[in-house]
């Protein structure tokens, strides 16, 4: 995808305002809440902290990519199954952090899951059902 923009703009602003990808949320603009998490070359980053100039030629994956063609990703499926989605505002970022974790470590233990999502704040869920969903998704993905 090509877009012409100020290289100092944040990746988050470009995703949302220039490319219309509103699935990635904005909560603080300072890398504190994690709702803007996307994958940059397979690693989870806070897109609000990434100047878009640094992204040239690299792979960015957002929540929109996970359910292309109407099929949801097993992580998304398990989030729903386990009740891990409440207000849902942290969910896209949370799903992307889980996605990054499972790419790097397909068989995480619960401690590793908690560490992987510790940069993603959630005020609704107490994280328990999110953790359960990610563990279950890992199980499903390895089959």
């Amino acid at each position, binding site marked *: 995808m090509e877009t012409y923009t100020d290289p100092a703009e944040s990746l988050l602003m470009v995703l949302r305002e220039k490319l219309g990808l509103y*699935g990635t949320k904005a909560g603080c603009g300072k890398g504190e809440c994690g709702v803007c998490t996307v994958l940059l070359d397979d690693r989870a980053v806070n897109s609000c902290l990434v100047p878009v100039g640094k992204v040239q030629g690299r792979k960015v994956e957002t929540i929109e990519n996970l359910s292309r063609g109407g099929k949801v990703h097993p992580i998304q499926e398990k989030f729903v199954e386990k009740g891990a989605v*409440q207000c849902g505002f942290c969910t896209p970022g949370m799903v992307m952090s889980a996605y990054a974790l499972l790419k790097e470590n397909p068989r995480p233990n619960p401690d590793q899951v908690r560490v992987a999502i510790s940069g993603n704040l959630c005020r609704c869920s107490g*994280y328990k059902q999110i953790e359960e969903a990610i563990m279950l998704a890992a199980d499903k993905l390895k089959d």
Partner: protein
Amino acid sequence: MILKAPEKNIRRYGKAEGTGYQSPEVWSKVTGKAVYGIDLNLPGMLYGKILRSPYPHARIKKVDTTAAEALPGVRAVLTGAKLESKPFGIAVEDELPLAVDRVRYIGDEVAAVAAVDLQTAVQAIKAIKVEYEELPAVCDPAEALQEGAPQLHDNFPGNVAWQRELVRGSPGDAFTGADLVVEENFTVPAIHQAYLEPISCVAVDDPYTGITLHTALQSPDAVRKIVAGVLNYPLSKVHVSGPVMGGGFGGRVYGNLKVYILSALLAIKSGSPVKIQLTREEEFTAGRPMIAAAIQMKMTVRRDGTILGREADIITDNGAYSAQAPWVSKTVSERNDSVYRIPSIKTRVRLAYTNKIPTGQYRAYGNQAANFATESLIDMAAKKLGLDPLEMRLKNCVREGDITVHGLQIGKCGLDECLKAAAKEIGWDQKKEGRGYGLSVAIHANGSLVFDKNFRGASALARLELDGRITIFTGEQDYGQGTHAAFAQIAARTLDVSPAQVTVESKETKTAPFSTGALAMRQTTIGGKAIQLAAEDLREKIFKTAAELAGAPVTMENGVMCSISGQELALAEVAYYNHSATSGLSMTGEGKFVPEESDYDESGYGNISIAYSYAAHAVEVELDKTTGALTVHRLVAAHDSGRIINHLTARGQIYGGVAQGIGMSCLEGYLFDEGRVANASLAEYKIPTALDLPEIVPIFIEIEDPAGPYGSKGLGEIVMVPVLGAVANAAADAAGVRVTGLPLSAEIIYQAISGWECEQ
């Protein structure tokens, strides 16, 4: 003749709740398709920005907007002097849309602009020149109440926003010659709801429809009433259209009225839609957190552990303007009294204006602050008397049939069972070496009969669609608590269809029944009852029409009706038959749930709710005595919220509410440097992460309460109440000394165990 479907044939979807039915909205959320307030973008939309006071208290001498108005791209500039507004408010009327001659906190709204983009709006704000004359400020609520303190509002002398003194029973006698009196001063800081989506609003002014506020609210009708009053618009010309809400927790009941009013005023002035979105910093510095409270409390107890009386002198910190602080202060001052059989009480509560951020409400409405104080005193008394804290609570806790000291009528009540279950699960009788244990109990009302005595219940509509699906129209809001899933289940159970056949609509005030909204833990019990009644009414109509169509009485199972002669009728067929017979009307059931009036009197004595929920929490902690760091290992949350409609979402409420309770107990709280918020970011105001929480064990004591739909009651607020007392008691058990100020940070605990005082 109308024949009701025989009971035995009805498939109980309510019992299939273990499968965890969820509202289809979760699929939009999990795929990133859900549209939240911050995502909204309308054609021709302008961006609004607010200029705020840099001083805690100052006189505005002059506001010059010439340079801002001259900036290309600026479409509207508002100042207080140019607006003709009367004071407005929620509990008391003490606010103006923009300050006219005085600012009262750092963050007070002074001017607002709308421009073609955010950068221009920010530039315009910077171009406004304001001359201030600083005034002496008062930031401590106790100082604010003293004579000679700087006065904030002319019509609230002595800086008293609200106060109440209350005596019930004979507290004087109770304290005379008592076996034991325990007494302590407790402090709870102001707490932000910390919903992750900052508040935003897109206001549209249209000559035909009036004002539409595109913003997510827990109580849209309450807000549009106030906004209509301020704008001087007819109520039917002010609408709220709700996008998906990124968290509420009480913070979006009235939300941020200034944002809605100013975006509307800018939209009117500019003629274009205007979006105002708060930054995270504005959320922390100009939002509406819950009041801080200083609670001086004493309790008198007989040698055998029977509570005889309770006295409290409470000062709550209102900040510069009063959103819901009087109501929250009232809850702090009395709700927790009703969890025990306390014969006599004496209470004074004073809500003081200070030059700080105004305050609103948070999940549980301050009941949790009182829980921290009362439950701490119970453990202090038990320790002094050599009693088991569990036994002392069992001895005093309320039971079915009781009328509490404030007149609350205790109906179905599983509080003692909750206590026993929580204590058993935490291992109360097999405590581990080196760990601390604590208990706490709570009561919380399911909505209020007295908040508006003329509007005590809820209503709903259930409409049969032409395709045989059911649409429920309600003003009760869902932002992830699972309310709408529960409503679909209630309607489905009544109509004997699958919950997936039911759609719940609530976000447009143009079509939703007027509602009190998502507050006071009322939605499941009161809103749910209205939905049950609407579905019952629709069921009657369906049976009547189906019998007409079939020419014979019908029974129904799983959404299919069957006549006595064996003819099967789908709901869609009945819908079409009615559609044709009425030339287009939909078959609609009306649900009107109007609870009986309360015996509530002038002194505030009486039954305030149709039902109460109960909880007991037990906590196991570990304390690192070299650093003071407290680790909460395990928390058992035993709840009587009647029959649980949906265990999956109910568990979610417990995990999430307990997490907020842990946050308030151990991490959270506003810090002020004079009037300035010293921790106005999520890095400094720390809410729990996935690494900060204990193992949480939910237990449901399911005692059917006939007050609610299918025996169910509210859960969403009470979940966080007992956490505070339980954690404080466990920390005291582990430390050997008691910390009486929240949060229980390592620093404060270390000071307590070492006896060191750290200079701030």
